[in-house]
């Protein structure tokens, strides 16, 4: 009996070792690669060869995941990401060739980062015009375990304040959110602090506090359910909602 037990223990050990070598599916790498490849789409004509190559490698990587060859898949996904980023860089630097008539957009984005809710022609876009009653409300982001508004996002709060000045009958709800790391209790408090911080900034800009409600959802309402830095960044946020 004991021998059987020992044998089992060894088997489990060996199995565990094997597993740690083979690892888990490369989810983060895959997400990054798929996203980078999607972003490279505007370059599919002007950087055709590179684009087709990236597509080919991506298909190989997906195939490797299906065959559970995770290490191989991980490397391939990384290659896809590199190739795709290069395509993005190329079409941004060569807007005439790749995106005739849309060169401003390419310049504004810079560094391969894709903006989520804004198109760069802010002033021209009625969705971001504070004189528009139907203006699309921005989302404000935060650092991990912090509730200070990121400097880059301060103009969003100013935009919101302007809109509230323009529409004095409107009441707004600020929803504070945290990323998944940390306890539910603590993240509810953190989300509350984030929402309160944005509220304070609006009050400092002259908005009546009675027109601003806040609610924290803690980690319960992620925008992106993935467990990686990119998702966490998106999820640490304050959103504005119309109360009336």
């Amino acid at each position: 009996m004991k021998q059987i037990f020992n044998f089992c223990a060894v088997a489990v050990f060996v199995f565990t070792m094997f597993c740690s070598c083979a690892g888990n599916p490369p989810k983060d790498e895959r997400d990054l690669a798929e996203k980078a490849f999607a972003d490279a789409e505007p370059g599919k004509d002007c950087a055709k060869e590179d684009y087709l190559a990236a597509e080919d490698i991506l298909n190989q990587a997906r195939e490797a995941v299906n065959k559970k060859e995770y290490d191989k898949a991980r490397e391939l996904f990384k290659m896809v990401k590199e190739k795709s980023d290069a395509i993005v860089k190329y079409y941004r630097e060569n807007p005439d060739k790749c995106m005739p008539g849309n060169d401003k957009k390419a310049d504004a984005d810079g560094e391969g980062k894709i903006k989520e809710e804004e198109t760069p022609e802010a002033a021209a876009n009625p969705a971001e015009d504070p004189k528009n009653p139907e203006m699309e409300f921005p989302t404000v982001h935060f650092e991990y375990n912090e509730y200070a508004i990121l400097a880059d996002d301060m103009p969003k709060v100013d935009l919101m304040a302007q809109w509230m000045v323009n529409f004095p009958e409107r009441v707004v709800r600020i929803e504070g959110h945290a990323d998944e790391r940390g306890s539910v209790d603590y993240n509810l408090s953190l989300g509350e602090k984030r929402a309160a911080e944005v509220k304070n900034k609006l009050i400092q800009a002259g908005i009546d506090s009675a027109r601003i409600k806040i609610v924290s959802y803690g980690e319960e309402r992620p925008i992106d359910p993935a467990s990686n830095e990119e998702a966490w960044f998106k999820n640490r946020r304050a959103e504005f909602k119309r109360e009336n």
Partner: protein
Amino acid sequence: MSVHFRLIAALTVFLASMNLFAQLQVEVKDGSVADYNMAVSPLAVLDGTDAELAADIVSSVEKVFDITGFFNVLNQKSFLEKPEVPMDKVDFKLWRNVAANGLVKGTIKGKDEIVLDLAFYDVNGGNKVFGKTYKSTKAGDAKKSAYRFAAEVIKILTKEEMNFMFSKIAFVEKKGESYSLVVTNFDGSGRKVLVGPSSATILLPEWSADGSKIYYTSHKNNNPNLFVVDLATTRIKTVSSYEGLNVSATAHPDNKTVSLCLSKDGNSEIYSLDTATNELKRLTKDVGTDTAPSVSPDGSEIVFVSNRSGNPQIYRMSLTDLSKVERLTEQGNYNQDPEYSPDGKKVAFSGRDEKYQFDIFVIDLASKQISRITQNQGKNESPTFSPDSKLIGFSSNRNGKNKLFLSNVSGTKQIAVYSGEGEVLMPSWSPAENN
């Protein structure tokens, strides 16, 4: 039978158990999984009784032995002796041959009145140590009898008094965006949905001291308000709906006070609320976040999380003198989820380690020693003690999704106990039921 003979029999049992205890004690102290091999023979089904019930009783007893971490429960397939062998004709040689140290064996009969006859044998000594006959009219009661028997055996062998078998666990079950408040038996069986499924959140369930109600927070009115649901009627009442947070309720032993975190005064602070009079008393006052209170079993103090030092740490505070505050955790920069043990001796919490992963730890309040329960097994959060303080339930994503796990307090035995589809979050262990 003479008194004399009974005395000798009792003495024999006593000596046998002393002997076994001595044999086990070293290993228990050691904190490692014991080398004591326990065989639980299938029951001999004599007449009328459902064979399924007989099998369920055996596997339930096995599960109880297993989770304590004191025993290796042997696989029935290896057994050489048939269950039908009469209880006074046990061939101990056959049990020694399968390396058993202890044997549980019994019979079950009857349908309207179920008679369960169980005995525990010391295989090494070749004698019966303890036996009992239980009569019941319901299958559920027969199973409880088997639990009582298992608790007796554990007590004989280890001196530990355990009653976790007579308790339930509440938790949040999350499927996609849908929340349910679920209650199961300690072993994950007997799932019952108390609240939900709902798209509004259901968070941080916590039992009332008498085990008749569960407090929880929900955003169903677009604010995180505190509710209470009655287990018998499933009726829901609002307990606290101040603007802002009404979260992290912990129930006091007086069965009417709850301490909770409110943000109505502009910052997360801890208050105690008399649910009978709605009288509110503020307990903390700090610019930092104070949250996640857990009240001591005598109601004299709370442990809670505060980031007053810069990052979340565990503190304890006297409720009779609010100026008496002591920081309990010094290691690590993210400690959270504190939970008092029902014996008042320990506090479990989850802390982030050097690999930025959350694990379960236990502080011994007398010595301030901190022991680690989980390591290198995914994210482990929301610890909750069994009513006898012998086991810790928690949520772990070691196998992918967050699931309910139980561990003994030394962390040497950890098992998953609930196989439902969704994620299992924020478990809360009930007080012990009458058994």
